[in-house]
């Protein structure tokens, strides 16, 4: 038995869909295998994760949508960071630093929320304060991203390593701020800054779900419009698809790298601000749970399509909430979620092969006629 592999001229969308579904199924089977190896029942675990992510039908009948709102709470930062990563990936700029940019944005936003009133920069309207805070967050994340972009354009330094190193630096700053520099003196010795005043806090929709969801949806719309309808988006796509053509067409690649990274980092920074203003109400532990890394998987799985990114983010947020759930109720590690995410990226990546190539199995000898 032999395999013959030849490139496909064109792949139908139904083929793509089947391959994608098979890949994801394989990832879940791989996750199940790992669970079985360490002595955990995969079916029970997956059911518990699903119930953790979307709730049980009894809860729905009682009007309890706690699980769904929790999933959406996690989907908000994931959606915004995935969009951020997706824009940069679109021009094949490997921004692996969304995690650090998110943290930088959270630091900038928290700084404004905590100290703006000392400089008389506080409005009585929460909306104005939130806008001010978001601007700070966008600037924080953008500045954090512009350094690797500058090093790339000026010195051709590999952006994968610089953006990644900046993650560690941002997280160390962040830990320093809430543990030492900005630590709440009235916090009974617990790490974390003071709670923000009420006018610096995003309102809630239902349960813990806050209006950051609106910000995330608007961000998605914005990215979609920019990428699909603007001249800038066109330039980004051309650079990503064919650098030579872009240069030949007179597109200023370096300027686009700087602009895109400012935008990408700004979005990630916005995610950080929304997270502190909508969930924790202070700068404290638990911000760097890996949204920036999961975002890489989400945007790749969505084939960098902003609308798909928004949907896949919710699914992945569900996996994260499901992971937390099995940790609480079954005492299993919540990192099952990260195993599944990593496996999914692998299987989808590998599955691409079957979209690009046709594989036929040749049985017996067939070389006589060639």
């Amino acid at each position: 038995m032999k395999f013959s592999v030849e490139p496909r001229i064109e792949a139908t969308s139904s083929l793509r869909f089947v391959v994608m579904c098979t890949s994801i199924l394989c990832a879940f089977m791989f996750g199940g295998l790992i669970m079985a190896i360490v002595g955990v029942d995969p079916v029970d675990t997956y059911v518990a994760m699903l119930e953790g992510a979307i709730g049980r039908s009894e809860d729905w009948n009682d009007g309890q949508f706690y699980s769904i709102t929790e999933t959406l709470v996690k989907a908000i930062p994931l959606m915004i960071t995935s969009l951020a990563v997706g824009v940069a990936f679109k021009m094949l700029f490997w921004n692996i630093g969304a995690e650090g940019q998110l943290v930088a944005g959270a630091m900038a936003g928290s700084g404004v929320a905590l100290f703006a009133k000392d400089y008389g920069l506080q409005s009585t309207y929460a909306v104005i304060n939130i806008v001010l805070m978001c601007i700070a967050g966008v600037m924080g994340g953008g500045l954090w991203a512009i350094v690797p972009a500058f090093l790339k354009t000026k010195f051709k330094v590999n952006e994968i390593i610089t953006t990644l190193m900046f993650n560690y630096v941002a997280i160390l700053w962040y830990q320093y701020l809430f543990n030492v520099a900005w630590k709440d003196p009235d916090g009974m010795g617990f790490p974390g800054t003071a709670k923000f005043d009420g006018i610096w806090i995003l309102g809630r929709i239902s349960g813990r779900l806050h209006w950051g969801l609106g910000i995330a949806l608007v961000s998605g719309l914005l990215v979609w419009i920019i990428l699909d309808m603007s001249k800038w988006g066109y330039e980004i796509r051309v650079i990503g698809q064919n650098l030579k053509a872009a240069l030949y067409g007179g597109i200023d690649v370096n300027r686009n790298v700087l602009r895109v990274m400012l935008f990408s980092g700004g979005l990630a920074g916005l995610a950080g601000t929304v997270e502190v203003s909508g969930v924790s109400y202070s700068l404290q532990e638990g911000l760097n749970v890996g949204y920036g890394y999961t975002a890489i998987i989400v945007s790749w799985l969505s084939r960098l399509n902003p609308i798909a990114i928004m949907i896949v983010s919710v699914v992945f947020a569900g996996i994260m909430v499901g992971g937390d759930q099995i940790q609480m109720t079954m005492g299993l590690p919540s990192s099952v979620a990260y195993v599944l995410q990593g496996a999914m990226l692998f299987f989808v990546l590998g599955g691409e092969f079957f979209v690009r190539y046709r594989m036929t199995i040749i049985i017996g000898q067939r070389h006589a006629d060639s």
Partner: protein
Amino acid sequence: MQIVDIAFWASVLSIAMAAGTSLVYAAVGEIFAEKSGVLNLGVEGMMIMGAVTGFAAAYHSGNVLIGVVTGGIVGGFMALIHCFVTITLLADQVVSGLAVTLLGGGLASFLGQRLGVDGTPLVGLIGPRLLEIPIPYMSDIAYIGDVLFNRDMMTYLLYIVVPLVAFYIRRTRPGLFLRAVGENPQAADVMGVDVVKCRYFYTVMGGVFAGLGGVHLSLSYTPGWTESITGGRGWIAVALVIFATWDPIRSVFGALLFGGVNAIQFRMQAVGTNVPAALLNMLPYLLTIVVLVIITYFEGLRKKLGAPDALGLPYIREERV
């Protein structure tokens, strides 16, 4: 703190040797993979998997050697996934490498919470560790004796492995084939070298080395298991390969430089300074960036010194270039 004190610098070097060992393993492994044309950004994931499985194996068997071997094998296995996806299925090497890191991080965290006694976490367990073996007489030499001849088994192994690897790549026939595959796979194919087999072999070898680097962390440098045990060392190793311009010997000096930063950080914390610990902890990451800027600034130099031409490109026999 006396800056000009020889004893002080000897102690810094001593810590640098301990901190640098895992970096040299990971960097040498990545040099193998990249020389064959495969960019594997999964070093961090392979290291952390090596660290967790190596520690677990050593803990349950009570034998460090079993731990070391397990970590190496698991690292190699992680690399094998990368090989299959990028070499056989022709997927993007950057994304696949990231996937190795992400999957490795998740799996290691998962296993770390399950591989203790009867499904309990590994965190906080004290297992066997690699002990320093002073070499008789030589370790008594003033200052350098302690730095060079009072090390653990894995560091001693590098004294042999690094020159051997350098010689192998530069001076032997298989080493020539390895370089040919990374520089110009078409030409290597015509020469009769099996490009696919060669890339698989050296990338898996790179994974074994990365796994060993991880094992050194959990069995020697910071004995035990914590989720952030690698702390970006895999990525520093990737940067180190560029810094060393794909040369194993130079990677040792790079690793000592990074290890030295760790050491100075420890020493400053020990004597007590006004500089916050967080700022000192940023030093290795910032140094990585500075070093990369300096190296890539002289791009002509980099090309001349050994960046493989076909690095990161899949090889498809039917395609013309």
